């Protein structure tokens, strides 16, 4: 009997302990939230993408000195590495973790999907009040293209707007065989070059591709790397199945021809990267997405000259507009302050460069009015420039041409809008079909696109399987949504 009683007492004590503990936890939260009274500066919690850096706290302390004075707010920046970002943010958003500003994009922590889920605050009103500077500096296509169901949820970073694919060439080989790339544009046009190299340089892979390769097609995809698409020059907005188009058939036949001729690596359908070829320089050409002055960056990073020529037109796609954005969390307590901060970040040269390159004379030094040089300590603060805001405000790096940002402006102006710019496919009704089609797609996509298998044999098979998985239903749903969207536009 005695034992029983002592047990009860112990249990009671334990319960009491737990209660106090949890109460303590609760209290801490409350005190933190009440800390943001009117006179005290507001602390904004900011999650952004990139490998965490050693000197982040140092730089942020400097940032806070400035922002406290300017807008009476401080920030707490937390960086999450590329590979973890989506997963971690998904959990944090779902659990209501306190945060104010967060990075989002078409490729990490999916912007459209999370905007629809209600993870972000709509910023249309904020933009007109606190965010005037942003609307003034940004190309209007950025804000227009990043609308989800008619509302803006994120501030796009001012950077290259359209997407442009280019053929890249190993310049040393071009010069050795005196090859001319001025006539190169289509996939078919490169054949003579590939042939020359194949015949003369047995150790060189003429056309470097990996399993992610697919021929450049004049289509705007409803979902990237899925077969539902609209032609770029469409007038009737008809959703077509890419695999049934004559354009793709022709390209695949060409790829298969190249494969049989040995222009591409026999392992193309399974290799994940062409990194090894780039390192050794044993390649003639490949295709990559480009931006102004990309040639210089490639050459510098590979250690030998690389030149490129456009492989298509520069087009403003949804995903290129949403390439990098900062959104305000739906549970932010200070959306106005957050917008004030984003506004400052996108318009204030001092703040933008402080966040991008670190502290002057510690991480970098200025070697001209608008040019800087990294100091050895810059390795302790190296964050992806494009991810946090207006790129055009950042200082030029040593060796960059003076007119770099002008070239970006010209590049942006040259981009044509894709037909579906501003349209976002809502897949909530057809999630099962999408998943099924995705699975089927995995089976054959790489081997077809790299030309490893004969399209005459495998394309019909693939089509049949995709249809069995429900592709037609997806296409019908897509068509309904596109039609409804086109109707609202007129």
């Amino acid at each position, binding site marked *: 009997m005695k034992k029983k009683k002592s047990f009860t007492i112990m249990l009671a004590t334990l319960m009491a302990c737990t209660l106090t503990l949890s109460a303590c*936890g609760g209290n801490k939260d409350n005190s933190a939230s009440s800390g943001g009274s009117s006179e005290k500066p507001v602390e904004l919690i900011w999650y952004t993408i990139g490998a*965490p850096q050693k000197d982040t706290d140092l730089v942020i302390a400097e940032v806070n000195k400035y922002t406290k004075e300017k807008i009476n707010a401080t920030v707490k920046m937390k960086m999450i590495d*590329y590979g*973890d970002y989506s997963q971690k943010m998904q959990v944090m958003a779902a659990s209501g973790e306190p945060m104010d500003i967060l990075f989002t994009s078409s490729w990490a922590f999916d912007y459209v999907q999370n905007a629809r889920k209600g993870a972000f605050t709509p910023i249309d009103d904020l933009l007109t009040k606190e965010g005037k500077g942003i609307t003034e500096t940004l190309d209007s296509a950025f804000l227009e293209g990043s609308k989800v169901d008619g509302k803006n949820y994120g501030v796009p970073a001012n950077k290259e707007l359209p997407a442009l694919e280019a053929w890249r060439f190993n310049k040393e080989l071009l010069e050795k065989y005196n090859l001319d790339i001025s006539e190169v544009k289509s996939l078919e046009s490169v054949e003579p070059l590939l042939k020359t190299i194949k015949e003369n340089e047995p150790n060189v892979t003429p056309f470097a591709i990996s399993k992610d390769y697919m021929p450049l097609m004049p289509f705007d995809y409803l979902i990237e790397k899925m077969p539902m698409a609209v032609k770029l020059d469409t007038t009737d907005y008809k959703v077509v199945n890419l695999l049934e188009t004559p354009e793709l058939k022709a390209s695949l036949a060409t790829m298969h021809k190249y494969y049989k001729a040995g222009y591409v690596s026999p392992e193309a359908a399974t290799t994940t990267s062409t990194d090894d070829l780039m390192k050794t320089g044993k390649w003639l050409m490949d295709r990559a997405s480009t931006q102004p002055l990309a040639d210089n960056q490639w050459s510098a990073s590979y250690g030998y000259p690389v030149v490129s020529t456009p492989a298509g037109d520069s087009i403003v796609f949804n995903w290129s507009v949403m390439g990098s954005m900062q959104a305000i969390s739906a549970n932010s307590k200070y959306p106005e302050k957050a917008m004030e901060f984003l506004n400052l970040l996108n318009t204030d040269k001092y703040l933008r460069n402080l966040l991008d390159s670190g502290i002057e004379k510690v991480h970098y030094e200025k070697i001209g009015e608008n040019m800087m040089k990294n100091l050895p300590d810059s390795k302790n603060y190296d964050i992806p420039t494009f991810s946090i805001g207006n790129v055009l405000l950042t200082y030029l790096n040593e060796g960059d041409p003076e007119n770099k940002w002008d070239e970006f402006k010209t590049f942006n102006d040259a981009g044509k809008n894709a037909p579906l710019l501003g349209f976002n496919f809502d897949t909530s009704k057809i999630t099962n079909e999408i998943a099924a089609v995705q699975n089927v797609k995995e089976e054959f996509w790489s081997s077809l696109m790299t030309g490893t298998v004969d399209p005459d044999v495998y394309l019909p098979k693939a089509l049949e399987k995709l249809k069995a998985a429900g592709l037609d239903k997806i296409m019908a749903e897509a068509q309904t949504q596109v039609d409804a969207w086109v109707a609202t536009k007129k």
Partner: protein
Amino acid sequence: MSKRNPKEKDIHRLRGSWNVVFNLIAGIFAFLCVFPFLFVVIISFTDEGALARDGYKLIPSQWSLEGYRYVFQNGEALLNSYFVTISVTVVGTLISLFITALYAYAISRKSFKYRNFFAFLAFFTMLFNGGLVPTYIVVTQLLGLKDTFWALVLPLALNAFYIMILRTFYTTSVPDALIEAGKIDGAGEFRIFLKVVLPLSLPGLATIGLFSTLGYWNDWFNALLYIDNPNLVPLQSMLMRIETSMQFILQNSQNSSLSLGAMQNMPQDTARMAMVVIATGPIIFAYPFFQRYFIQGLTIGAVKE
């Protein structure tokens, strides 16, 4: 063995030919297990250029220490992660052993009235759990562990499966009579537990200890969820970050800013392999330490009187 009469037949022995066959099978299997790791070690010592040129070779044309040099040059973060992993493993294993042993002992004693209730409580968590987001909310908001050392230790501290193992171990290999004997000699509950039960259960504790050591050493998911502070990132999580980020960047190569911006920061193949070697190395030494008890643990209780 040599003193034994050669003609006397040892019934435990296999015939010579079978012995060879079984040894061969075991040997091949062991080799298959060790080989990939051996290969990783070789690659980590290969010259980067040779690797790009010839691919993975068992005997590379050119050896190099470049991978390790790279790792140790940027070594501050690595050493820091090492330190985090080791502290988490040591502290975690101790805590885990401590509470698992206590819990399991309590529910193994027949005189404990609520043993079935507590056994069920533990068992229940093996079948059902709250899922990712509720767990996250409990850890970060209720317990306030986000970005702390304890977020790496506490979520793994108590495992229902280990409790079950240890309880079974107590009930089968610590006879009730011994506990009673202790009581008759005037020992209290704590003394009985410390002086009688624990020494007898060393093999069981070592097994659990090994499991949780490995669990802590290899854990990266808790760090992924709860840790933002770069100074608190354990080794496995750091490796995982490097790998997943690289893959991620490769898959998103159509985004020109991303691929151009991140291109310079990618570590080379050999450096990654060197990191794997460095991360796996120390834990190998944990095995022999535990193995002594481990074998005992497997044989003890195999035959009951």
